[in-house]
């Protein structure tokens, strides 16, 4: 067992060694570029944090309450990222067929450790690019000492660990609940997709409950009162957040530099270690049972399978290649519950943001009709929309030519070109994103009282930007297909994946910022529209050229 631990721990080192064994110079250069990108993101966040705090500090009345708000928002973001990530990682670990051979050995329990380690490591990566720059930025601006900064790192690490553990516990609870329900109804309903769906339903119910309690509060009162009223309003709004207490400790540490921050950090870290050990013991004991439960399913090896659910098979009525690709994509999105869940989560978040717009407008109208929001709010709505489109594209479009890896033979041997596939994917995903995104964007503008003509210009820019993001994802996918993985989560951390994320998010910020600056001048907006159109044509041409050189298979290692 200890040898297996040793082997598994040395695995990342071996992977790096193997990676550098061939084309050393090119690969070192690729790592260098990757580090540069991370550094660039980190420095940008660091500078933005300091500049943001600098901007806030000019408003002496609101300053302190806003610092508190920033601490709360920051930890809420960390919570969403690490909690969601841990559920996805632990769920995926039970789906990995390559783990079967380890689960068949007497050292099966090692997988509990490996998975816990993996999910903590994958949650902690955001430390590099996001958390360290933000905390350093705050520390620099507030002028806190090195010990306080170190304690803020410790506190955030502990928070990520606790949230990841909560994700594991929530998934385990979900599986065991399904097992209990299975015994009640006399039919096995334990499955990964159902376990995740159960978690999503619970989360939605909890958010709905939080919404009902928190929403009656008065947002505008915050801008009218003194420090005590402001803090009171803020706390009334945020007290229902799962990270409220711990974010208060961070606020004490970095913004108030008081003894409570230090004391609570030490207590919280101790509790986290205790919790981590307890959950590891729990997972270690139940990992095999959960594995077995989640491996069960239908298995069809012959004709006599009447008891198993049958599906209404789709007929693929068209004989046009692009139309067939579109039909196939729609069918597979519909059949894959994980895909549907992704759509539901992203669109749900977008709708939640729209609900916030509605609530804020209604609240503002209580203080007099016709409240006019500043122009940057509309640019922000555009940026949020394009951010959600980028997230969906990273998940669904970017893996296009890598995800088809194992099934590439079906399309590869058929009389259909890679260009047909690219066009099919462009049409279907642009169509879906515009179909879902346009009404939400327009709803936001209507709620916030944006005029018809500027809203139309924003919608045109949004639509062209959606095409740009989808085209970028397809181009990177066809030009740099990954032959080793078809997993969207893994692909998003490869060099082309990171390039897509940086370009899509960077482009989103630039487009939204330009729209904010030039909206009053229609000529400049038209120029921006033309610029995006030219970029779209350029990417189309690059994609076509890449499709001409595309090979469906890579080198076969035998």
């Amino acid at each position, binding site marked *: 067992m200890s040898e297996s631990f040793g082997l598994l721990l040395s695995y990342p080192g071996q992977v790096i060694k193997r990676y550098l064994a061939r*084309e050393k110079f090119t690969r070192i250069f690729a790592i260098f570029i990757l580090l540069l990108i991370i550094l660039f993101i980190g420095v940008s966040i660091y500078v933005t944090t300091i500049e943001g705090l600098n901007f806030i500090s000019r408003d002496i009345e609101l300053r302190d309450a806003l610092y508190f708000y920033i601490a709360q928002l920051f930890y809420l973001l960390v919570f969403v990222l690490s909690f969601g990530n841990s559920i996805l990682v632990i769920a995926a670990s039970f789906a990995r067929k390559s783990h079967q051979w380890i689960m068949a050995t007497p050292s099966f329990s090692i997988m509990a450790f490996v998975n816990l380690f993996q999910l903590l490591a994958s949650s902690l990566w955001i430390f590099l690019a996001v958390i360290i720059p933000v905390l350093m930025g705050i520390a620099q601006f507030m002028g806190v000492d090195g010990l306080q900064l170190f304690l803020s790192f410790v506190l955030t690490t502990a928070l990520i660990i606790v949230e990841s553990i909560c994700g594991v516990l929530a998934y385990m609870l979900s599986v065991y609940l399904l097992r209990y329900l299975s015994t009640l109804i006399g039919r096995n309903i334990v499955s990964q997709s159902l376990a995740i769906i159960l978690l999503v339903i619970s989360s939605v119910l909890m958010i709905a409950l939080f919404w009902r309690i928190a929403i009656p509060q008065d947002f505008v009162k915050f801008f009218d009162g003194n420090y005590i009223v402001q803090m009171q309003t803020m706390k009334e709004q945020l007290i229902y957040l799962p990270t409220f207490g711990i974010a208060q400790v961070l606020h004490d540490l970095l913004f108030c530099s008081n003894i409570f921050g230090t004391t609570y950090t030490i207590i919280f870290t101790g509790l986290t270690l205790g919790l981590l050990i307890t959950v590891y013991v729990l997972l270690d004991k139940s990992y095999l049972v959960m594995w077995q439960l989640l491996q069960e*399913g*239908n*298995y*069809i*090896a*012959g*004709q*006599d*399978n*009447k008891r*198993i*659910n*049958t*599906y*209404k*098979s*789709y*007929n*693929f*009525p*068209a*004989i046009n*290649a692009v139309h*067939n690709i579109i039909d*196939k994509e729609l*069918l*597979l999105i*519909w*059949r*894959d519950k994980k895909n549907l869940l992704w759509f539901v989560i992203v669109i749900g978040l977008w709708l939640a943001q729209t609900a916030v717009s509605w609530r804020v407008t209604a609240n503002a109208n209580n203080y007099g009709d016709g409240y006019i929001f500043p122009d940057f709010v509309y640019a922000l709505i555009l940026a949020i929309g394009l951010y959600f489109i980028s997230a969906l594209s990273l998940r669904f479009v970017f893996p296009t030519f890598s995800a088809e890896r*194992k*099934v*590439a*033979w*079906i*399309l*590869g*041997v*058929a*009389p*259909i*070109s890679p260009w047909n596939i690219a066009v099919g994917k462009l049409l279907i995903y642009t169509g879906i994103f515009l179909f879902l995104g346009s009404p939400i964007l327009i709803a936001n503008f209507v709620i916030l009282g944006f005029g018809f003509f500027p809203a139309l210009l924003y919608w045109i820019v949004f639509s062209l930007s959606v095409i740009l993001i989808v085209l970028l994802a397809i181009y990177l996918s066809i030009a740099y297909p990954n032959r080793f993985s078809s997993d969207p989560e893994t692909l998003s951390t490869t060099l082309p994946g990171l390039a897509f994320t940086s370009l899509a998010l960077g482009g989103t910020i630039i487009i939204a910022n330009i729209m904010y600056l030039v909206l009053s001048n229609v000529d400049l907006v038209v120029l921006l529209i033309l610029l995006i159109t030219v970029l779209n044509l350029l990417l189309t041409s690059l994609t076509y050229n890449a499709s001409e*050189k595309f*090979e*469906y*298979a*890579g*080198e*076969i*290692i*035998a």
Partner: protein
Amino acid sequence: MIEIKGVSKKFKDKTIIHSLDLSIKKGEFYALIGPNGAGKSTLIKLLSGLLQPTKGEILLDGINIVENPKEAKALIGYIPDEPTVWDGMTGFEFMNFVGALYNIPANEREKDIKKLLKIYNITGTEHQLYQDYSRGVRQKYSILAALLHNPSILLIDEPIVGLDPISIDITKNILDEFVKDGGTVLMVTHTLFVAQELATRIGLFEKGKIKIEGTYKELVDKAHLPAKTSLDDVYKNYLAK
């Protein structure tokens, strides 16, 4: 007919196929055998258009697969070594989708699929998801999908892996009938008894080149082995040299 003229395939600085010349006539069943890593699967991927040759040309019934990929691919039926299909499709949808890619009208497709399913006696499984099929059922679907558009050339990478003995016999009959009807077959395999029984010509492929080729009888004679020596033993004998 398959014509391979001076074909080489390189992956970066590594040459997998070395200036290969090979011609397989209409109605001929050519079996390519050889050790792992010889380049057999790469060759079949070149012929099926999954890879592009670094040098040379490949003609399928006279059509160049690099210059006219759509026309050339319409002639091919390909059976892969791993019958992986999208998990979210049913067997019927997979075959229907493949039929649609080959421009077979929808009403004809449905009739043809029903007819083909009867060959392996798997009618009743077609509206269940691919993810629930056993290895054998998946293999059967991939064989049937390759036949759906009546190809003139079959390219096969390991045809019988995961099949039970009765299904192996059915598969052998399918291939036999295909060749008798004038089809051309190139099969890559490690299950040498199938090659011995069905192939009209056998090539021993090693390090990207054909080391020796001929009918089963010619290979036995050239190796100076007794007449009824199995292809297994003939193969081992050649590799030992």
